[in-house]
């Protein structure tokens, strides 16, 4: 390789030996070294403020990924977490690892005609799932939308009327949609988040490295990051917890809605469903054709947010067919005008003996009846 001439430069004759280590140069080097170390020590000094329980102990450091832990290792991890919770919150938690149920795929449906924007779900969720109170972490965001649009950019997250619902708005709560094709799972570099057989996307809080790629990837802004050490008053801890859901989190990891899996995998309703004063929130097993959510998917016009991004959410929005007259006095007037016709349409003419069930049955498609039988 003749064209590489990088050693061709003018070479100087050797002049003398390696420089002597004089007393002066020794002192100078020593002083510089000491000064450097002192400066480094000063730079590192903030580390002294690291709280002891912030530093992972040996067991936690070596803890395996959720899917790799044996039963015994899981027991050990659970015991470690119980102890930590007890140390921090002075409560012995009922902590376990709840596994998904066979033949269950959870689906959520939300009736936009019924939601009044009271934000009870938001706060029930926080109380149930031990989120940090300050800085505040909430999984549900209720957006106040002007009528006539579904463009969230026109919505208001911070509405603060004396009372809700406001006559000119409807309310759209958004939380994790537990997508069947979750972009957050796809992007996680360490598989700290994955989809469970029952459709819930979970996070191993002990595995997450906090890169926040999932947060960037989520089209529903459903994921939250612990930018600081979560702050949860002792008396507000919910001791009923599970490994993959609401056990207290650490600083620097992601979290998000998990359909209250510590409740729902034991047959109970999620906290947000339980608290909802209007029954706008519906939850159930879509593999069961008789479940409420199956009925909604079959009989209501449902839609999902941002269908174009191909995430296949398990969270559906729907409207009731009728304009909710509770929100609109005009609708009452219309109803008065139409009273006879409307009653007729559903077989409840004044004087009739309740709804004619045969009419209801006849007006619904075959497969719907089949599913009911």
């Amino acid at each position, binding site marked *: 390789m003749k064209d590489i001439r990088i050693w061709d430069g003018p070479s100087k004759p050797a002049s003398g030996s390696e420089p002597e280590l004089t007393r002066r140069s020794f002192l100078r080097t020593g002083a510089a070294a000491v000064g450097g170390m002192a400066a480094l020590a000063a730079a590192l000094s903030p580390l002294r403020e690291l*709280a002891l329980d912030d530093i992972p102990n040996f067991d936690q450091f070596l803890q395996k990924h959720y899917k790799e832990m044996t039963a015994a290792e899981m027991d050990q991890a659970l015991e470690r977490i119980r102890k930590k919770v007890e140390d921090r919150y002075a409560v012995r938690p009922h902590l376990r690892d709840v596994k998904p149920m066979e033949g269950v795929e959870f689906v959520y449906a939300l*009736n936009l005609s019924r939601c*009044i*924007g*009271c*934000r*009870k779900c*938001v*706060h029930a969720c*926080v109380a149930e799932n031990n989120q940090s*109170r*300050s*800085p*505040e*972490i*909430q999984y549900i965001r*209720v957006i106040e939308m002007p009528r006539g649009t579904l463009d969230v950019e026109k919505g208001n*997250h*911070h*509405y603060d*009327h*004396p*009372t*809700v*619902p406001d006559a000119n708005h409807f309310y759209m709560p958004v939380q994790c949609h537990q997508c069947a094709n979750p972009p957050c799972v796809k992007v996680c570099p360490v598989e700290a988040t994955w989809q469970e057989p029952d459709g819930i996307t979970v996070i191993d809080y002990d595995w997450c490295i906090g890169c926040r790629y999932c947060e960037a990837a989520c089209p529903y802004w459903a994921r939250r990051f612990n930018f*600081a050490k979560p*702050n*949860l*008053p*002792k008396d*507000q801890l919910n001791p009923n917890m599970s490994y993959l859901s609401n056990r207290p989190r650490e600083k620097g990891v992601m979290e998000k809605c998990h359909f209250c899996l510590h409740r729902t995998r034991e*047959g*109970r*309703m999620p906290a947000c469903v339980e608290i909802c*004063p209007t*029954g706008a929130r*519906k*939850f*159930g*097993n879509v593999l069961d054709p008789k*479940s*409420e959510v199956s*009925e*909604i998917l079959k*009989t209501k016009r449902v839609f999902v947010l941002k269908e174009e991004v191909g995430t296949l959410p398990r969270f559906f929005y729907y409207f*009731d*067919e009728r304009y909710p007259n*509770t929100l609109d006095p005009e609708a009452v007037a219309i*109803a*008065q005008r139409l*009273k006879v016709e409307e009653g007729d349409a*559903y*077989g*409840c003419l004044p*004087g*009739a*003996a*309740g*709804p004619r069930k045969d009419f*209801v049955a006849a007006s619904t498609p075959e497969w719907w009846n089949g599913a009911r039988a």
Partner: protein
Amino acid sequence: MADPPHIAIDGVPQNCNGCHQIFQSNSPAGATLNYHQEIRLQHGLNNRCVNCHDSQNRERLTLRDGATVSFAETPQLCAQCHGTVYRDWERGTHGKTLGSWITNSDAQRRLSCTECHNPHSPKYEPYRPLPGPNTLRMGEQLASPVHGAREGQSPLQRWLRDVDPKHHNHATTDGGHP
């Protein structure tokens, strides 16, 4: 709702018929009420007591064909006018279900009409909404830019400034939860 309903009068539990067998309502139109002043009847066109309450037996509800049902069977009564809603409620797409999502499990309980709606005034009362997102209300312009614009930018920043690392417990007392 208890069936039949009862009420405490002077501390003595009474059924509806306890009074109504003595004081026959002589005004079927229900123009004026001397009793039940607390009831605000705001049910649209349905503005007469005896549309729903059986005029003979006040512990029963009357259907349009003259048959009566007990208070526990309210949905049948409501369904006479609210057919679509009744249909949805039967399917579970309207109304609230508690206890369990497992269909037909013992724990599952679907609330009936009057457990959510006041039958005399079925429209929901307006609610005072719970507080909106607070800590993450970032980028909001501060009313008075006392602190530098940079500091004012982020509530997380403000939070960090408020929480002196030496007084970590201080922050616990002012959690965002109501």
